């Protein structure tokens, strides 16, 4: 009995996060392709926001995402800007896809020169 209430509480606690994730995924599938890649950062603003909400939850995730959007202006040089590590840990093999996508393994260069 207690277990069920704890679990349903957990579900409602996680609901805002799921809703924001759904909205972000819909945006990335429908709106984003309309105007192609425009972001000056890696990961792109929407990918950053999606990872931030997935890893940090709705409140901190939205705050992180908004901060990134403001930084994504023509007077910022852009570049690689990963989401700060969060407290949520995922069991091996269950890492969310967006986290995998945003942290690809960079293959070593063929020539022996320091990576750019």
């Amino acid at each position, binding site marked *: 009995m207690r277990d069920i209430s704890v679990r349903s509480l957990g579900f409602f606690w996680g609901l805002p996060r799921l809703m924001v994730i759904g909205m972000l995924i819909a945006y990335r599938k429908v709106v984003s392709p*309309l*105007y*192609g*890649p*425009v*972001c*000056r*950062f*890696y990961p*792109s*603003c929407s990918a950053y926001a999606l990872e931030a909400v997935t890893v940090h939850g709705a409140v901190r995730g939205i705050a992180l995402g908004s901060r990134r*959007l*403001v930084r*994504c*202006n*023509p*007077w*910022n*040089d*852009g*570049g*690689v800007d990963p989401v700060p590590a969060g407290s949520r840990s995922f069991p091996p093999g269950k890492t969310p896809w967006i986290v*995998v*996508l*945003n942290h*690809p*393994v*960079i*293959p070593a*260069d*063929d020539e022996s020169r320091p*990576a*750019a």
Partner: protein
Amino acid sequence: MGFFGTILAPFRWLVSWIMFMFHEGFTFIGMNPASGWTWVLSIVGLVVIIRAALIPVFVKQIKAQRGMQALQPDLRKLQQKYKGKTDQLSRQAMTQEQMALYKKHGTNPFAACLPIIIQMPFFFALFNVLNGISRASAEGATIGALSVESVRQFDNATIFGAPLSSTFLGSFGAGGNLSVIILSLVMILAMTASQFITQKQIMARNMSEEALQSPFMRQQKIMLYILPLVFGIGGINFPIGVLVYWTTTNLWTMVQQFYVIRKMPTPGSPAAKALAERRAKKGLPPAPLLGERKAEPAVESAPPVRAQRVQPQRKKRKKR
């Protein structure tokens, strides 16, 4: 007022205030305040304000695109490294390395999200204002900075017999209005044509060979055919006033692009060649182009430094 209404409120106020100010100005110089044309010109004024404010962004973007030429060798090396690796994660890795490269060179060809996002609320706000004008007029309410009287005037304003707040889809059947239908169609065509011409101009005249072959171009070509569709769908749903805004913005983009192509073309593009020829005909030296490699001036400035006599050398020594 819902969530979006609350966010839009300040933008709605600003948009309506700018239009109101233009309307006052045009009335002051003797135009009929009740005429649809005065209101159309007020919308055009709004476009001019917004687009003029965005010019620095545009210039910044052009400079960044020109800065790209310096890192072409590095980019090619990167493309070589990822050649044949088409899976999603490899693409992501490549994008990440590319971004790091841009950052290192302090240039970035992307326009950034903010300028696009910033324009959205203005567009929605205008849509909101024009869409709400009929109801506000009937209720005797104000919209943003527009007084009750202005709202009523705006609601009754027509051009060619088409009310500014009417839509294509709302103009069929009983009480229909043929001029709204014709005017909407004309503006949809104008928007599509200007978009098409702008894109074609950029691709045909203002791109170097290298840029034309980038994967980026494929996306641009797809856009060329999707956007007319967007204009068509939007055009039949949006009020005439919004279409005026949209068409004017597109025309602005087209003229801006023409100017850039004529006065500061991309080095190595057909337009750059045309500019050099025009200047040669007038007997002018070729103009320095934005982002051009500075190799030639360096060579020219070299000889005067060599004041010392060059040591004569035996010819045999050179042929080693």
